[in-house]
Structure formats: structure tokens, C-alpha cells
């Protein structure tokens, strides 16, 4: 019986080996084009890929051009980037972004993990209902969330101060001073993004086979031991993805700040996004703002690389 040309001439084992052992460099394209399925897949993804490259590449190249020129279009080399180093407002915004991420990301991860464990446990009852309720903050836009929290933080009319006044304590004027405004913003952000951590970690937990816990129980492992040695390694990749996404979300937030503090008091709650927005659309210096955009991208990239290295790759080494 002749083998049709469009069907792989290799056995299943051969094909598996071909995937495991990458072909020689010069043969990659030949290898891809050898199989009909690959060719069809390539034909289907190429248009989207081209569109994606165009859509992504153009803004990146344009941003690069903006950085190297001033508002009058004159080439100025790296002057925009070097100017950032002495810009105290930029430095303040950068520090604020990092401070906020340092607080918001771990708290949201812990909260998300706790909720995921709770919903996965036998105590949760109708899980679908709980999940639907818990992810509501994800569906609320930043501006709406910020406005809602601003009302809740109102010193006399807001709900947040009710427990304090019931306890006979002085109400806190949350948004008036820099320290309390920072805490207030962190609370809003945790409320807003911890459901994302919950969803991702819940999905990760659902991939842990239940029988390993039964085996561990037979071996006499405590719940804590089983959680630490079995659950955590399983969800570690999802944990690292959640960490990266939460970091990105918390550092790029702008609507929440616009609706709650408008960057105040003074400039105490300016983060990088707010700085870039103001520099670009209020102070009309898009070229200089682009330099800050690159710094923000680099910051996200470096943080992402660190998270992947220490959270994800480490699992392979174990």
C-alpha cells in the first residue's frame, strides 16, 4: 500500500522523537513544511501573525523614534532618557509604583490563594455561585471602582469609617494625607486584582490530582506537609503567571488613581502611568513621556524575568 504524500511517513515513535529532538538548524523550515497539517496551520496563523507584528512593531518603533527626538522633531539622541535621571517627579512616581506593587502583589496573591483553597475545599458548597461573586471586581472598570471607593472613603459619609466610629475611634480622612492615601489605594487595588489571582490559582489547583493527597495521607503526611510539598510545586507555574500579571496590573493602574486621589495630595500618589499620562496629554511632552514608557516596559520586563526565574524555572530544578 502506498503512503499518501500528505500523511506523515514516520511512525508515531519517530514523530515523537522528531518533536523531542529538534531538527538541525538548517532543516527547521523543511521539517515544518514536510507535513500538511503544519502547512495548513502556518497558512492560518500567518495573516494574524503579520497583523500582530504590524500592530505591535509600529508603536514600538514609533516610541523609539519619539524618545530620540524632541517635541519639534529634532534628533536629540538619548537626552530624553538622561533627563529622566534627574527628574525628581519621575523618580517619585517610579518609587510609588514599586512600593505599591510590593504591597499589592503579595497581599493579592495570598488572598487569592486563600480563596482558591477555600473554594476548592469541601466546605465551599456551590462553587459556581462563589466564583461568580468573587470575580465581580474584575468586571468593574477602574474608574467605576475608584469612584465607588472614593465615596466609601468619604470621612463622614463613607462606609469604611463606620466600623471605626462604632468603636468610638476618630474617623480617618483616608485620602487627605500621603500615608493614608497610599494605604487606601493599596486596598482598592487588592480588591480589584486579587480576584485575578484567585481565578488563576484556582485553575492551577484544579490541575493537582486528588489521588496524590490520598497517597500522602496513607503515608502519614500532615495537611500542611501535603500543601507545601505537593500543592505548591504543582501550582508554581500558575503562581508565577499570576505574579507577573498582578505586577503589571498594579503598576499600570491609572483609572483608580484618577478617580480616587487624582494623584494627590500634592503628587503623593503619582505612579508611572499617571506621570506618563500627565506628561503626554497635559504637559504635551509625548517625546519625553515615551522615555518614561520605555523605563516602565523595562521595569515590567525585568520583574517578569525575575519572577519566571525564581518561581517557575526553580520547579524544574527540584
Amino acid at each position, binding site marked *: 500500500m502506498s503512503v499518501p504524500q500528505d500523511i506523515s511517513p514516520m511512525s508515531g515513535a519517530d514523530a515523537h522523537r522528531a518533536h523531542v529532538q529538534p531538527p538541525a538548524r538548517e532543516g527547521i523550515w523543511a521539517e515544518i513544511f514536510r507535513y*500538511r497539517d503544519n*502547512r*495548513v496551520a502556518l*497558512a*492560518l496563523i*500567518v*495573516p494574524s501573525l*503579520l*497583523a500582530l507584528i504590524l500592530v505591535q512593531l509600529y508603536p514600538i518603533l514609533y516610541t523609539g523614534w519619539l524618545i530620540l527626538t524632541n517635541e519639534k522633531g529634532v534628533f536629540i539622541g538619548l537626552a530624553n532618557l538622561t533627563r529622566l535621571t534627574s527628574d525628581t517627579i519621575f523618580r517619585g512616581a517610579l518609587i510609588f509604583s514599586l512600593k505599591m506593587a510590593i504591597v499589592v502583589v503579595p497581599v493579592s496573591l495570598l488572598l487569592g490563594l486563600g480563596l482558591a483553597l477555600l473554594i476548592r475545599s469541601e466546605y465551599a458548597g456551590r462553587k459556581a455561585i462563589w466564583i461568580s461573586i468573587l470575580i465581580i471586581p474584575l468586571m468593574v472598570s477602574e474608574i467605576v471602582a475608584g469612584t465607588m471607593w472614593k465615596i466609601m472613603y*468619604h*470621612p*463622614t459619609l463613607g462606609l469604611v469609617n463606620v466600623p471605626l466610629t462604632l468603636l468610638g475611634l476618630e*474617623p480617618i*480622612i*483616608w*485620602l*487627605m*494625607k*500621603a500615608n493614608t*492615601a497610599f494605604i487606601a489605594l493599596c486596598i482598592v487595588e487588592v480588591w480589584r486584582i486579587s480576584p485575578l489571582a484567585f481565578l488563576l490559582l484556582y485553575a492551577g489547583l484544579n490541575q493537582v490530582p486528588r489521588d496524590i493527597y490520598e497517597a500522602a495521607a496513607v503515608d502519614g503526611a500532615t495537611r500542611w506537609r501535603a500543601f507545601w510539598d505537593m500543592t505548591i510545586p504543582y501550582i508554581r507555574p500558575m503562581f508565577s503567571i499570576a505574579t507577573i500579571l498582578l505586577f503589571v496590573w498594579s503598576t499600570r493602574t491609572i483609572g483608580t488613581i*484618577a478617580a480616587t*486621589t*487624582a*494623584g*494627590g*495630595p*500634592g*503628587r*503623593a500618589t503619582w505612579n508611572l502611568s499617571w506621570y506618563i499620562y*500627565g*506628561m503626554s*496629554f*497635559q*504637559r*504635551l511632552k509625548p517625546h519625553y513621556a515615551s522615555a518614561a514608557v520605555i523605563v516602565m516596559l523595562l521595569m515590567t520586563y525585568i520583574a517578569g524575568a525575575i519572577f519566571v526565574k525564581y518561581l517557575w524555572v526553580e520547579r524544574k530544578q527540584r
Partner: protein
Amino acid sequence: MRKIYLVAIMALLMAVMLSACQAPPPPTAAEAEPEDVTISIITAQGPLADGLVALIPQFYEETGIKVAVTPFPWTTFFEKVISLARTRSGEFDIIFADDPWMPNIVDGGLAVNLEEAYGATRDPDVPDISYDVFSWPPPYGPIPQDFQTGEPSQLHALPIQGNVIMFYVRKDILDERGFAPPETWDDVLKIAEAVHCPDCDPPFYGYNVRGTAGSDALALLWSLGGGIFDDEFNVILDNEAGCAALTLYERLSKYLPPGGNTYGTTEMVAEVISGRAMMGIGWPGDAYAAFEDERDSDVAGKMHYMPLPAASPGAPHVSMMGHWGLVLNAHSKNKDAAWKYLEWMHYNQQHALDYAHAGGIPFRESVFNDPDLIETKPWFPAQFEALMVPPKWRPRSTQATGISLAILGPAFSAVGAGDMTGEEACQQSGAEIRMEMEGVTN
């Protein structure tokens, strides 16, 4: 054969994608007929848009020209105007613009010279300053280098909303406590101190503010005789009058509601209509209609409106302008139809009156003083009075909006929070504005 098949699939997909990105076809000859023209107007949401929308059917009936109004969220409207200028977009035939944006609009090539192109003239029923603010190059005041062209100053927009920032105060409490309306800022301080009672039930606050608004800081600055630039465009914010304005605010901030330094318009209005605030600065278009709305306000009929208090007895009550005007977009494909709309809205007294009845702020003397309107909008005569002082306009620089939002606003907020003294805020803001203007010639 398979290769041809694959190439055909890819070509088809690319064609579909590219056709989706294609610009719409140009209007055909039939579409360009005047009776089928639709002019598009971009404006801010709220009373500005309401007034325009209310008059669309009448305009269509009289001219056969359709009008599509696109109300834009106020917070991002300036960005949109800047984007239109940067992209030289003809997306909107008319831009209903705030007067401080005129430098950005003219510098961005968005505005048609209405005198040159259509012979626009000044109507005697409209105060001169309402035309001056929309004339270009600026007829007087500090003018940046690029705008000192020596060309005659001509109209580049027609005023439709003659807004001026004003001062409001609780008349009933003034009467109850035996005070006259404040003539000077010293009077304001005295009244605020006398009535401020944060521990009362309900609390009552001596002064109210939009604590993050650079425009409120600017209004204080003008009313005390300060400014941002002198006639040579040197920064003078940190001179004696400028620092006096921010120091005055430092003193007034003792009488603010808690957290007042973070208030926007909504919170400022809420304090007034719930009867918890004595007085403050406010834009009539934003706030005063809410104050006088009997359905929601506890203070309807209890307010006194006036131009801003003066720096000293006998000094002028200088307020700040916030006019809105119709700009004919230089990139519009329907310029003639758009001009018809501008003419129809601006030069007809009845249309201006209808616009004010629909929620807009007048720009004609006859409309400001219309007895029917004054019954529901009791601040109109005082607003006209403020307009005749005359008020100041914001600097004719492309950087003016940024200075207000990103430099003065944060400084104002920091003073309100007690994080900075007025003196520190004015020195810091002065230095920041100097840096901001380094190398800027427009």
C-alpha cells in the same frame, strides 16, 4: 496545486483584513448635496452638549442640514482635541472648545480664521472680551514668541457659552449672622472663621473648594492681582501677589471640610446642596444649577452669587474666564455647512436664548439679563457683572493647561493637605513653570 491553494487562502485572508482596515469611500456627488450634509460636532458631556442637542431639530428644520453631536467625557476631552490636532483630523466639522485650548487649537492648525474666510463680525450684544478670547493672535496680554506674528488679531471661534468662575455664599446664613456679602478676601476669612463648626451636628464648614483644581488656584491668583507670566512671558507666579494667593488658600484651608483638598466638583457640590458649606469658588456651569435644583438641594433660593472678592477694598473683582466657543475645523469637508451652523447659533438672539433655556450659559447681554431665565438661574446677572470687570483669561500658551493641571493643581492640593505652606507652594510652582517653559516658544 497545494501551494496555489495555500497562497490563495492566505491572499484571501489578507484581502479580507486589509479591506476591513480600508477608509470609507469618499462621498459621492449625491451625498455632497447640501440637503444631505450632516455636520459633526464634538463637545464635552453635560449642559454644553444638552444645549446643542436641544436645538438640532430647529436647525434642521430651518436649513436642512443635519447635526450629529458627540458628547465626550470631560476628563478626556482635552486629550481628544490634542489628538485631533496632532493627526490633522477632519473627523469633526466643529469643535466646541474651552477658551484655554485656543493656543493648542490654532497652533495645531485646527481653526479656520472666521473673519478671513467668512467675514465674521462682532455683535454689539456680546461683550468684547468674549470675542477677544477667541481672537488670534491674542489681542493683548502675554504672548509667546511663536504667536507674535504681527498679523491682525482675528476671530478663530465664536463664543457660545460665556462662562466666568464666580463666588457663591449662603445668603441666609449671612443674614442670620449679620454679615454683608464679602467684598474682599479678608472678609471671606472673617466670615469663614465665624461660621466654621466642624463639631456641630450636622457639621458646617466655613469654606469649600475643589481641592485638586488648578483652575481654582488660578482664580485666586487673578483675584489677588497675581499672574503666571508678565508681558515678556517671564514667570511671575512666585512674586508677592502670587505667593499671597497661595498663602491665602493656606489660611482658608483651615475651614475646609475634612479631605476637602481631594474634592472634585461632585464632592464640592455635595457639601453645598446638603447645607454643610458656607462659600467658595465655583464654575456656574458645573455647580450652580445643582445648587438651585429644588428636588435635590437644601439650599435652593438661599445662595448669593457674585464676582470673586477683591484683593483690597475698592480693588476690582477680577474673576477668570472659561468661555466655550465653536471652532470651525480647518480639516472639515463641510466647512460651508458648518459655518451656517456657527452663524445660526451665534448671531441669532432667539437661538442664543433657546440655548440658555436648554441648560447652556449665555454669552449675550440680553440673554444674561432675561427675566425669565433669571428666575431659574439667579446667578446670571452677577455673572454678566463679572464678565464686564473684565475677568482674566488663562495664558495664551500651549502649555497653559498642563501648568494648571500638573503644576498648580498638585501645589494647591498639597497646601490644602497642610503638606506645604503657601509660600513653599508658590516658590516650587514658580520654579517648575520656569523649567516647563524652558525652550518653549508657543
